[in-house]
């Protein structure tokens, strides 16, 4: 299915170029521009990318297959022919719209948020570069190009997390993200090697085509699947590589919104979704994906209960929601996973930007214990944040409800992981959904509702943010509220989203229980969400948070706050020894250098002094030298001698 440039859909391949052009412009010239020019340039770049993405999207409606375009041949070697090309089908178009659309809103928001920062141009250059890399990732037709984008977003994430690098904590956070990502990247590379060896190609379409020819549950497919899972785990912050995401909140809030809510962290989901035919043939690997997802979701939800930083709560929430997505792709509900990516991008970005609005208004305060009642002072922010909270909690008719429902339904009805405990997965996921509602209520209440715990001068200065910040909030809130209707539960209603994605994803057969079972599942999720919200209301509104304070102050609470001990464990197991080795090497190096050079100096001076001793002026010494020489000669004569 090779497309041509005359096809408007193919023009979406230009999207990364627009973003790259913005990045280069800001990178080279941005410093000389006065605000808000860097932001405008960046926004226009992403806007252009959005336009071509929208054109592609419209062009693809009604079409069955996507457009594949080979741009040039990259590595034509015997046995493996890698070329650079793009694939624009339903899946990539969906992601394109999310990336460029949400990205555009965040760019607009950033113009105000980063207004007085001296490194405004650098910020926008990096943000554009990130968008360019992410677009390359989702447009790529071969795993090699995916990896290029993969690495690109990793680097940009590092640079943006550590944007205010002069503070050590920020630089450390960036480094932590990069290193943990790297572990995942190793998995990616290994998987690609194995894939190249197994399939003889790295082009995704061909791999997917060949996957069906392997035996169901073939070992090599499982191995490849597991290795790509490692890669996805690193990028999407799943257990056990999730530790970088909470620290990544050190970056500017719009960055957190874009990268760590809407786009980069979904790259893992995208990868597995892209390779869905492969995973559909490897139930063991899919089961591992699902279980990793649910464990992550649960762990992160528990940790979120105890956090006190407004952004860290959302970070753990992101990890948890990503877990939901992983469960979805693990059980074979690929469309549900992408749907959740879609809705999550809206409400999570919304929540982060609202948090950013609050932080901006409070001039950098991020501790929720010093917030409260802000909904009364910042009406727009508070209202949109409420919508986001309700959406993520799964309140019916908002977008989160539909996407979570799709995941839960898909889990219960999964045939792919039926033998791997799909029902248990469902129960755990349901519990996590309840926890989600609870901790999000807590988040909302601590920040926007209840009595004000602001400091005196913070309270004086707080004000609603400018339209540049609130308009994106409102737009995102609208999407968060309404986008769900694109994917109504498929057992009873037309699910436009699922149908749209069908050509691009593997179709896994599912169970079809009677209708009342399906409605029961829906009811279960509604009940659980209500219970979570009610519990939150009971504890925080009615009880003024007393019970929570007692629970949170105990050792269990502190354990949860510390991310369930993962950071401490990693520090002890890996970072500590590594620092020990590095320190030891540094000492050895210093000693070697110092002592080595000193030894060299000492040796030369020793030799010098020894030689100088012969120049003492003592005639007896000279005579001794001569005598010794004579003795030596005599010995030589005796030994060698001219015997006849």
């Amino acid at each position: 299915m090779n497309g041509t440039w005359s096809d408007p859909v193919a023009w979406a391949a230009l999207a990364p170029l627009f973003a790259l052009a913005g990045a280069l412009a800001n990178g080279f010239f941005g410093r000389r521009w006065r605000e808000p020019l860097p932001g405008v340039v960046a926004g226009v770049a992403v806007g252009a990318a959005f336009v071509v993405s929208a054109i592609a999207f419209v062009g693809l409606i009604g079409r069955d297959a996507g457009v594949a375009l080979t741009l040039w041949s990259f590595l034509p070697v015997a046995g493996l022919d890698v070329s650079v090309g793009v694939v624009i089908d339903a899946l990539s178009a969906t992601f394109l719209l999310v990336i460029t659309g949400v990205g555009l809103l965040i760019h607009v928001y950033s113009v105000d948020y980063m207004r007085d920062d001296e490194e405004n141009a650098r910020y926008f250059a990096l943000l554009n570069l990130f968008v360019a890399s992410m677009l390359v990732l989702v447009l790529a037709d071969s795993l090699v190009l995916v990896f290029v984008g993969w690495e690109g977003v990793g680097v940009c994430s590092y640079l943006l997390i550590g944007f205010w690098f002069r503070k050590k904590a920020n630089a450390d956070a960036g480094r932590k993200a990069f290193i943990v990502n790297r572990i995942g990247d190793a998995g990616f590379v290994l998987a690609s090697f194995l894939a190249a060896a197994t399939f003889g190609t790295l082009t995704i379409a061909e791999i997917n085509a060949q996957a069906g020819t392997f035996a169901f549950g073939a070992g090599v497919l499982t191995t490849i699947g597991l290795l790509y899972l490692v890669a996805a785990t690193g990028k999407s912050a799943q257990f056990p590589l999730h530790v970088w995401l909470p620290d990544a909140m050190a970056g500017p809030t719009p960055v957190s919104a874009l990268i760590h809510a809407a786009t980069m962290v979904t790259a893992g989901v995208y990868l597995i979704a892209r390779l869905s035919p492969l995973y559909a043939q490897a139930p063991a690997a899919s089961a591992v994906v699902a279980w990793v997802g649910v464990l992550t979701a649960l762990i992160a939800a528990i940790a979120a209960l105890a956090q006190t930083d407004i952004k860290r709560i959302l970070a753990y929430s992101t990890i948890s929601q990503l877990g939901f997505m992983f469960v979805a792709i693990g059980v074979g509900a690929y469309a549900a996973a992408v749907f959740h990516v879609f809705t999550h991008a809206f409400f999570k970005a919304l929540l982060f930007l609202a948090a950013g609005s609050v932080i901006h208004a409070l001039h950098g305060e991020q501790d929720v214990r010093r917030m409260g009642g802000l909904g009364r002072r910042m009406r727009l922010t508070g209202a949109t944040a409420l919508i986001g909270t309700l959406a993520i909690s799964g309140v019916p008719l908002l977008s989160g409800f539909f996407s979570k429902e799709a995941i839960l339904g898909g889990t219960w009805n999964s045939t792919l992981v039926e033998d791997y405990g799909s029902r248990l997965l469902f129960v755990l996921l349901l519990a996590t959904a309840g926890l989600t509602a609870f901790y999000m209520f807590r988040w909302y209440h601590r920040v926007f509702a209840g009595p004000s715990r602001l400091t005196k001068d913070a309270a004086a200065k707080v004000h609603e943010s400018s339209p540049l910040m609130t308009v994106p909030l409102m737009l995102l809130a609208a999407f968060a509220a309404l986008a769900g209707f694109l994917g109504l539960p498929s057992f009873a209603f037309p699910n436009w989203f699922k149908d749209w994605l069908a050509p691009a994803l593997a179709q896994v057969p599912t169970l079809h229980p009677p209708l009342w079972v399906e409605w029961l599942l829906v009811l279960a999720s509604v009940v659980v969400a209500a219970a979570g919200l009610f519990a939150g209301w009971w504890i925080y509104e009615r009880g003024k948070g007393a019970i929570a304070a007692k629970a949170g102050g105990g050792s269990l609470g502190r354990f949860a706050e510390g991310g369930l001990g993962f950071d401490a464990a990693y520090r002890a197991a890996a970072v500590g020894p590594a620092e020990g080795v590095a320190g030891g090497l540094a000492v050895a190096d210093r000693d070697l250098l110092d002592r080595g050079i000193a030894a060299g100096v000492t040796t030369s001076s020793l030799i010098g002094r020894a030689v100088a001793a012969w120049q003492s002026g003592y005639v007896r010494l000279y005579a001794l030298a001569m005598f010794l020489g004579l003795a030596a000669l005599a010995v030589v004569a005796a030994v060698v001698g001219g015997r006849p």
Partner: protein
Amino acid sequence: MNVPTEAYVALSAVLFAIGAMGVLVRRSAIMVFLSVELMLNAANLAIVAYARHWAGFDALAGLTGQTVVFIVLAVAAAEVAVGLAILIAIFRDRASTDVDGLAEVRL
């Protein structure tokens, strides 16, 4: 000839070694000189012994060897004269004839 030439040579070697020892061990310059004379005489002994040895094979060798020793003797005499003069010149105004004190002699 009941005493072989080698015996005389060995004796000469011993005297030479003792003389060399004396050159190194003695502190006074004049005693060093004395030891040098000893070495010289040891060498003379060796030459005379070999002169006698080769006289058995060559008509002139023996006498030539002895004459050489004669000349060496003359040279030694001249050397002693000049050497002692030098030593007197150096040590006349010093209290000691310590050889090690010559370390400061600048040539």
